[in-house]
């Protein structure tokens, strides 16, 4: 080697080794994640769980030899928390444009991929409740991280979020008050357990796991932004194959699914709000 790598290059090697360790030791492949945001997350994990100076290499030893650390690693590498009714204009469009279409189905199946702590799952449940559709709805809420899913099942959040969430709920066209769906106590906001009654929380890895349901609506907001282009397209293909013809897909507000590959099988309902429909005549037939 003509020249010693500098510390940026060394850290790049460490990140590659971390990814390799996660893949070979635990079977989770982060090799198709966008490097810049993955590096930030792995640095944070190394700071929390590594030794001394927080170098990523000090974390790798623990990845290999302490399997009990895996849940915390996956939590740190998973989708971060959201807000209830985040981007209210999107939830308003779901309420006004998408739910009336879903109402034509006798059974409604919804998949939220990357549900994190569940804020948007419960937002959806409230929408369905208010539209009188919840009794015949089933929501599959999946995430890579079991720890995230545990928190999502509990439906307990810091009370300081409540004010913003109430404003979001109203801006999203809510006809009651968010307080009708939760109780506040000890600085915590606890959502009504009844909102959970038709939600199934389950671990699912978008990188590796297959299609598992036939849905009328797939929500996956601000998850694919962490993926490389090929993995993004693979996920879009998986969403397409999970959706009935004419089924809806909702992505994050600044996501760009592109127009080729699997993205070509979707037509925009509201391109600004990133709401799409699976085209009637595209994709693999039944």
């Amino acid at each position, binding site marked *: 080697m003509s020249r010693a790598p500098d510390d*940026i290059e060394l850290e790049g090697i460490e990140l590659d080794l971390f990814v390799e360790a996660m893949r070979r030791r635990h079977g989770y492949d982060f090799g198709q994640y966008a490097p*810049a945001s993955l590096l*930030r997350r792995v640095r944070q994990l190394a700071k929390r769980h590594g030794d001394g100076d927080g170098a990523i290499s000090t974390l790798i030893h623990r990845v290999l030899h302490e399997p009990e650390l895996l849940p915390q690693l996956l939590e740190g590498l998973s*989708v971060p928390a*959201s807000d209830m009714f985040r*981007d209210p204009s999107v939830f308003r469009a779901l309420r006004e444009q998408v739910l009336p279409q879903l109402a034509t189905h006798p059974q409604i199946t919804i998949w939220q991929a990357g549900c994190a702590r569940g804020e948007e799952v419960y937002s959806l449940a409230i929408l369905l409740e208010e539209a009188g559709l919840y009794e015949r709805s089933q929501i599959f809420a999946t995430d890579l991280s079991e720890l995230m899913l545990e928190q999502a099942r509990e439906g307990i959040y810091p009370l300081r979020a409540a004010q913003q969430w109430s404003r979001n709920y109203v801006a999203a066209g809510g006809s009651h008050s968010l307080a009708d769906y939760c109780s506040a106590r000890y600085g915590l906001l606890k959502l009504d357990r009844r909102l959970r009654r038709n939600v199934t929380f389950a671990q699912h890895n978008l990188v590796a796991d297959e299609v598992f349901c036939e849905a009328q609506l797939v929500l996956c907001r*601000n998850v694919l*932004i962490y993926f490389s282009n090929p993995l993004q397209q693979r996920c879009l293909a998986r969403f397409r194959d999970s959706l009935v013809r004419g089924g809806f897909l909702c992505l*994050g507000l*600044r996501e760009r699914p592109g127009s080729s590959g699997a993205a070509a099988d979707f037509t925009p309902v509201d391109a600004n709000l990133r709401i799409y429909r699976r085209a009637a005549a595209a994709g693999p037939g039944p």
Partner: protein
Amino acid sequence: MKRPAAIVLGCSAGGPEALRAVLGGLDPRLPQAVLVCCHTGSETVDLLCELLARASRLPLIEAAEREPVRGGVVQVAPAGYHLLVERDLHFTLSADARVNLSRPSIDVLFASAAAAWRDALVGVVLSGANADGAEGMHELRRLGGCAIVQSPDSALARAMPQAAIDRAGADHCVPLDAIAPLLNQLCLP
């Protein structure tokens, strides 16, 4: 230092006014990419972009995920996401937690840009009311980039430039109206 390949600008309170002054003074022949991270309480940066585009002599757009960084164009971080530059000089967005109570965070943009461009980067911290940008500027200087800080006395809000100087020092600490001429001098071929 070699001739820069990119300029990153960070600001918050008083930032739009400062950005108008800087962008209005940049030479339209600049070949560098100009990346802007300005804290805003709004849900979008549509209005900010409109305001800045009127002042800027370079074309100005909102930065979009998966797009290549473009030379000779001002690219503004969207609201609600961190903006990062990949080593292959494409944009990535992140919805990870706020940094310094901010998303987009100047620290996040500057640190990723510093890793991508190293000593071919100029960082500029303008008016602002918190300490975001100080860590990013520190990282930028550590990797050989050139740090310009608006002199706190010339800033509508002095906390941000002061924090950058305290944490990272600066290669140039100059009043607002001197920043664009300095950038032109550093960046024009």
